[in-house]
């Protein structure tokens, strides 16, 4: 039982990170129907910004977190403006290839400027380095911080999406772009806003993962990015609570599978779960399957 609880605790931390990244995938998909392959590299960039802030600029944890979120936000919006916006009326698959191009550019650009080597995050000090045992389960302060930050960001996101004008515009555009335009909504601004929020969340996830697992490298985003996207699909792509649920589900399953000694098959089990869920619920756990109107 203790093992199970311990794995659950670890799974919640990994799941938080997947959920944060999955939110960006799902929001962008919801609004422009693009699998934004460059999103996982924003997460990587976020980890690097956090690393630079903490090692070279000597900033503390929270200022670094804010800076990596801000940096990723800027980068995400910039990528959308330069590479995606001109293709708004092109076939969707061309947009996808462009996203793949941007993803490669970020990865290999990072290798070119910062070397392909693995970097190590500075060890946490003070309160952040503490850990304590609760009922036989080891809990580190880092994990608690990851949960709390994720929770805070999700609450903030709920507020932004449901309580602000821009959030309402976002939901309107994702439901029906043309109708939204006719209602006077600025589509371009809304799309930028979506990219900004999604990228900032990816930046936060990157920074948190750096603190949690210590090492970062230019290709660190690829596999977690895929799994975060899987999480978004499992939850029902385009649905914000779906991405959160999917993220936690994938994170917990992954950690449990490893914890019970099947770590070699971890990825296969995650993907098998995806395929199984899609076969049973073709639009994901929280998605509504809509037939085509004839």
């Amino acid at each position, binding site marked *: 039982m203790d093992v199970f609880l311990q794995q659950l605790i670890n799974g919640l931390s990994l799941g938080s990170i997947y959920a944060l990244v999955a939110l960006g995938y799902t929001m962008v998909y919801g609004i422009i129907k693009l699998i934004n392959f460059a999103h996982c590299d924003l997460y990587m960039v976020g980890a690097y910004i956090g690393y630079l802030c903490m090692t070279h600029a000597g900033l503390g944890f929270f200022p670094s977190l804010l800076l990596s979120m801000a940096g990723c936000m800027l980068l995400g919006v910039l990528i959308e403006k330069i590479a995606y916006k001109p293709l708004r009326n092109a076939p969707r*698959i*061309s947009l996808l290839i462009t996203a793949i191009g941007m993803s490669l*550019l970020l990865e*290999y650009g990072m290798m070119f400027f910062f070397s392909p080597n693995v970097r190590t995050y500075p060890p946490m000090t003070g309160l952040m380095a503490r850990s304590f045992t609760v009922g036989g389960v080891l809990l580190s302060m880092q994990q608690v911080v990851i949960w709390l930050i994720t929770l805070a960001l999700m609450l903030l996101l709920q507020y932004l999406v449901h309580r602000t004008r821009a959030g309402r515009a976002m939901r309107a555009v994702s439901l029906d772009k043309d109708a939204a335009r006719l209602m006077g909504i600025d589509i371009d601004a809304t799309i930028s806003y979506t990219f900004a929020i999604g990228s900032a969340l990816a930046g936060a996830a990157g920074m948190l993962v750096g603190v949690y697992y210590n090492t970062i490298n230019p290709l660190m985003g690829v596999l977690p990015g895929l799994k975060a996207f899987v999480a978004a699909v499992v939850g029902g792509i385009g649905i914000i609570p779906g991405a959160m649920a999917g993220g936690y589900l994938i994170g917990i399953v992954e950690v449990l599978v490893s914890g019970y000694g099947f770590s*070699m098959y971890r990825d*296969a089990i995650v993907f098998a779960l995806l*395929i199984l869920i899609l076969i049973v619920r*073709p639009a994901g756990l929280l998605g509504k399957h809509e037939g085509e109107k004839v």
Partner: protein
Amino acid sequence: MGKHKKRILQLAFFAATYLAVAALIRAGTINDFSFAVIVTICINIILSSSLNMVTGFAGQFSLGHAGFMSIGAYVCALTILRRPTPLGFLLGMLGGALLAALVGLLVGLPTLRLRGDYLAIATLGMAEIIRVVFLNLEITNGAAGLSFIPQLVDWNWLFAATAGTLLLIANFLNSSPGRACIAIQEDEVAAEAVGVNTLRYKVTVFSLGAFFAGIGGALYAAYFYFIKPDLFGFSRSVDILVIVVVGGMGSLSGSVVASVLLMVVSTALQAYPALRMILYSLLLVAVMLFRPQGLMGSKEVADLVFTRFRRAEKTEKQGG
């Protein structure tokens, strides 16, 4: 009339390519390095044209083509490691392709009910599962992979496999089942309404695509000495998709042209290893920004040549 002319033009092109490369090999102009480039181009042609059949023509978005390629590669490698003869290679290649097709059938039946991006992500998952299985099997030697695979592929094998794949795919697309598949891509509801069993044809075209991907994988294993699961990961599937889209969805000659061009660019960039992938990705974005429908759109080279002819004939007649 036009049909026969096109066929003759295609066959002439194939024959000329075969003879030219054979002559250059004999003359020693093509060395080992440039032959390796040609092998890669041919394998890419096989993979991209088969993926184009599935994604470009039949509209079933697959992100798992490399998974099928790996099945062909492993089956062929394991066969020729035991029987390093041309017959062994032939059996290994066909066995690998058939196994890939079978896996395609089994995976396709449940997943091809999904649409668009859901299908893409399911096929991606399937390829990752295949990769993990090869990582863990004993017979495939896990992450270290298989090495010292006998090099049995020469230009004759390579040409036969590539030209054969292209001809068979072109034949299929120009037939009743092929048209049914294209109809699915055009309008699935209408296709069902005129009697196309959409699931059956999706599964057919998907496992056919897997079959050819298996052939491509077999050639890879029997030329490059060494295979391991990570060679056939997600990024390989993406590479193949890139060729298809850059060449033009729904254009077989587009896939051929893009296979050659992208390989030439990639080889030329090898002089600048640090910048290579950066330039490559910039090129990719640039091509998509300026030509979102791909180099050839959905046209074939032969169509373009013949419209040019017809236009010329017309102007001549009008002039005379």
